[in-house]
């Protein structure tokens, strides 16, 4: 785990080559995170993976969170791990909802981390994030003909209301 100054050093080194790639840093509860520009995400991930001093070679998780009503709304999280030093670093790219039924898009990192294949499909399945350049971006857990992105916060929960006496008395 890089500490807070270590995180700033990483940011400085990235900024030297690619000004504007890192939008912000966050160090909260001993967890370091880089908030990066979605357009330069792949360059940052490749640098973190290949730079001799960094070597975050393992993508332990890729997931998405919906921060509605914050703007930009979607956060794509990349949890990186250096297995020699057992250091973890989170890279976060924030995506805005384009509206009009369009999907927020970001570059796929399958070329860098093959493990991202299924995880990007899952993120697409539940949040409707389009990963540009993914080899086969289809639904992975829900049925192929499912309509909607059910883990978004503005998606209805679904199911059927149950007429418990408690609910009837208090809300009926």
């Amino acid at each position, binding site marked *: 785990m890089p500490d807070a100054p270590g995180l700033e050093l990483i940011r400085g080194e990235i900024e030297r080559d690619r000004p504007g790639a890192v939008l912000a840093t966050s160090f909260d509860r001993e967890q370091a995170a880089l908030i990066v520009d979605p357009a330069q995400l792949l360059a940052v991930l490749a640098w973190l993976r290949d730079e001799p001093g960094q070597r975050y070679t393992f993508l332990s998780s890729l997931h998405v969170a919906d921060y509605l009503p914050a703007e930009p709304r979607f956060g794509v999280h990349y949890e990186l791990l250096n297995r020699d030093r057992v250091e973890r670093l989170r890279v976060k790219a924030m995506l805005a909802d384009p509206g009009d039924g369009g999907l927020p898009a970001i570059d796929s990192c399958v070329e860098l981390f093959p493990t991202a294949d299924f995880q990007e499909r899952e993120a697409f399945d539940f949040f409707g994030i389009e990963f540009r350049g993914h080899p086969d971006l289809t639904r992975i857990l829900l049925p192929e003909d*499912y309509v*909607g992105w059910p883990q978004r916060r503005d998606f209805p*929960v*679904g199911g*059927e209301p149950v007429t418990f006496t408690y609910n009837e008395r208090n809300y009926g």
Partner: protein
Amino acid sequence: MLRGDLEGEDLERYVEEKVVTTTFEKMINLARANSIFPLTFGLACCAIEAPISIVTARYDLARFGAEALRASPRQADLIILSGRVSIKMAPVVRRLYDQMLEPKWAISMGACSSSGGMFANYAVVQGADKFMPIDMHIPGCPPRPEAVMYGFNKLQRKIMGSPDQGWRQRYNAAGTEEWARGGPASTPSPEAAAAYEAARELTLA
């Protein structure tokens, strides 16, 4: 006993005591109820109780003639839906049920498969009887194996009484029977036949 051993009154009393007359249907149903082959099939956590626990020595479904779990729906009489049915699994379950040969029964076990249970959400079918006929609902989360056995005994009683309770008419599913070797088939209504063909094409595609 040889012919002529008993005569007159004695013979009458003997017949009265030893011989039971019944209908062929009732005898068949007695045999069906006491030799059910359940399908080896589990959906979720309820499967620990239903197909696994109740065939072990402690509960022993063999006492009711149902110890032979079949691995193929073609050989099974009973399907126990043991767990929540997700909307992705529902067509598969329906297809398994359609492949079972007549006569066939279905038990919906536990809160989830009967009503969706705690999974009132976008991914789970809210009650398995939305897509297939269910003969018996066993409540519980999960039901105790004793409850499953009680439900099973109720199903046996139902089989001996009125086996199908006319579900084929209620579900407008006449003509969809699967028999081992060309058994009797009812004639479906044109709408039911068209719906069945459409569903078949969808599942086979």
